[in-house]
């Protein structure tokens, strides 16, 4: 599904990613954890194609294709989805209109028929249930006046409609109370299929109680310094990141 090899990326000439290696296969859930400023969000944004970040070195293969060569919209149309840490407001554009345009551009790319208004409505009604969304929000402007929790739920709802192959959830748990966290996690779990994969970027182990990862990676100073199973997350919760920092420094020095 996804193969990241020796990925280096900078923002404003500052190196954030310093050689990330990661392989994700279909059907897997990977968690990427790490302290503030370790490069977690940068990795998510680079995968989505944000231009603020400059890739200096390395390669990313996505379903056999060179992901870094693709435009932002082509990555999306090929099934890469980023659930934003800070979803953006688009005043005057209804969620329904926005999502229909998005879905149809994805379907067009796949060579599928575009959905008409009735078909689209039937689909979103069904998917809205996954994240326990009121239908009225479809007629509200995209993310405008949404609470933090509503914005995050809206991200997962969009994911449910667009059915990506690879979903990257960037700190989807931040700012959520426990009920909202459960709803969001339930949504992600229900969307899990053998032919898609999820990368969960998070600070805390909390979310991983609900979305159980197959692999946990610790990102520090722009590198993955440790990988393991879900128990690694529990260890981090107990011991924090500091002990690993020492190990990482030792490793880097050797």
């Amino acid at each position, binding site marked *: 599904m996804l193969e990241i090899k020796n990925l280096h990326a900078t923002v404003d000439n500052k190196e954030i990613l310093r050689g990330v290696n990661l392989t994700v296969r279909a059907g897997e859930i990977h968690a990427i954890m790490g302290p503030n400023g370790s490069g977690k969000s940068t990795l998510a944004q680079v995968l989505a194609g*944000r231009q603020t970040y400059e890739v200096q070195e390395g390669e990313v293969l996505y379903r056999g294709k060179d992901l870094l060569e693709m*435009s932002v919209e082509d990555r999306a*149309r090929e099934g890469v989805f980023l659930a934003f840490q800070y979803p953006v407001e688009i*005043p005057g*554009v209804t969620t329904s*209109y*926005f999502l229909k*345009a998005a879905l149809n*551009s994805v379907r067009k790319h796949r060579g599928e028929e575009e959905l008409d208004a009735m078909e689209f409505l039937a689909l979103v009604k069904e998917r809205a249930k996954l994240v326990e969304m009121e239908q009225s929000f479809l007629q509200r402007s995209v993310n405008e006046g949404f609470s933090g929790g509503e914005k995050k739920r809206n991200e997962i709802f969009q994911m449910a409609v667009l059915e990506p192959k690879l979903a990257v959830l960037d700190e989807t748990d931040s700012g959520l109370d426990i009920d909202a966290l459960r709803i969001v996690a339930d949504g992600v779990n229900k969307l899990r299929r053998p032919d898609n994969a999820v990368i969960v970027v998070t600070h805390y182990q909390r979310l991983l109680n609900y979305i159980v990862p197959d692999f946990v990676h610790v990102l520090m100073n722009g590198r993955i310094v440790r990988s393991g199973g879900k128990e690694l997350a529990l260890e981090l919760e107990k011991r924090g990141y500091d002990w690993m920092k020492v190990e990482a420094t030792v490793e880097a020095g050797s």
Partner: protein
Amino acid sequence: MATENQTIEELAGKEYKYGFITDIESDTAPRGLNEDIIRFISAKKEEPEWLLEWRLKAFRHWLTMEEPDWHNVHYPAIDYQNIIYYSAPKKKTELKSLDEVDPELLRTYEKLGISLAEQERLAGVAVDAVFDSVSVATTFKGKLNELGIIFCSFSEAVRDHPELVKKWLGSVVPAGDNFFAALNSAVFTDGSFCYIPKGVRCPMELSTYFRINAADTGQFERTLIVAEEGSYVSYLEGCTAPIRDTNQLHAAVVELVALDDAQIKYSTVQNWYPGDKDGKGGIYNFVTKRGKCAGVNSRISWTQVETGSSITWKYPSVLLQGDNSVGEFYSVALTNNRQQADTGTKMIHIGRNTRSTIVSKGISAGFGNNSYRGLVSIQKGAERSRNFSQCDSLLLGDKCGAHTFPYIKVKNTSSKVEHEATTSKIGEDQIFYCTQRGLSTEDAVNMIVNGFCKEVFRELPMEFAVEAQKLLGVSLEGSVG
């Protein structure tokens, strides 16, 4: 043809009687402007004496006026003596099929979703479709006649309903109102006239589209709409299809009168030629539009979508004379490439308990320059009046400009005026969010811009709103990349 020539010859003969000295061989007046030219225009149009006098008065006043320079637009000086002020409507050279039409134009038609038949009509292809629209227009006219609604060209109105024209012409925009209005009053050639009798609700949107002879109304257009007591009319001006015109200067005047309990809704989509990327060749559009809420409880709404012209200078205004009257102004003005727009409104509150709403959305892209200029004046007697203004500007790129010049004058203490203004840039994060969902950058920008304009678009009649959205997309082409 023979009789037509005869008529012209007869007219030409008449003109000498009025002291017209230039030798007239064709249907086109010589360049320049003087009283003889005005007499020539008036005679060509077989106008009554009073109208000629009215024109001459306007012209004499115009001579004493100076071209305004307070606006925030720049253009080379206009030589008013180098303009041809009258040219009989020419027969368009008819094309045999769409294959002969400029492919660039066809591409734009397609983007706007204009049907093939309509494309042919617009491009001047001689086909049966033209007859279709004639028959539509005929049915339409029959229905209006039954209701006593008059909807015709200005020239026809002068001929068939002189008493109405005489009563209302210049009653809202006096002949000497401003430099461009005075010029229009002196030399206007045609336009639209619309009269809604007492208590009649016009059952359809009146559109210049249905007025077959609306083509070639020329550069000095004059429109007059009178809504009698308790009547209602919605009027559509312009169309989204690109309009090419060889006349660079346009100075139109539109007057609206709403009597007691009457309502006029006036919607405009202006898509004149904006000039090329460097701003060469575009239309200078200097328009005076004003409505008078003469009666109690009357209401006038202006809605405009301005995407064309290289210079747009217009301030559709409302005089709120009748007590409890309402004035509204909803505007989207887009400037791309080298376009300049200085537009806004004046709400003059005279009657008691009058209300006005202003919603202005300015979009600047490329090297475009967009100014909102508005006056809210609440006079002493306009007790308990209210105004709400909202002026939002959206910038695409860093070479364009947005300016706001709001003027507020309040002369009593019982009224309330609110003004809100915002300026924002289309965010890179907004575009990224949209493209991450699979939209192209162009579609993303269109969507964001259309969302920005939503409050104005919802004031437009449904099908007009859909067209206006597409038009914004076409007008923004090449502004991102």
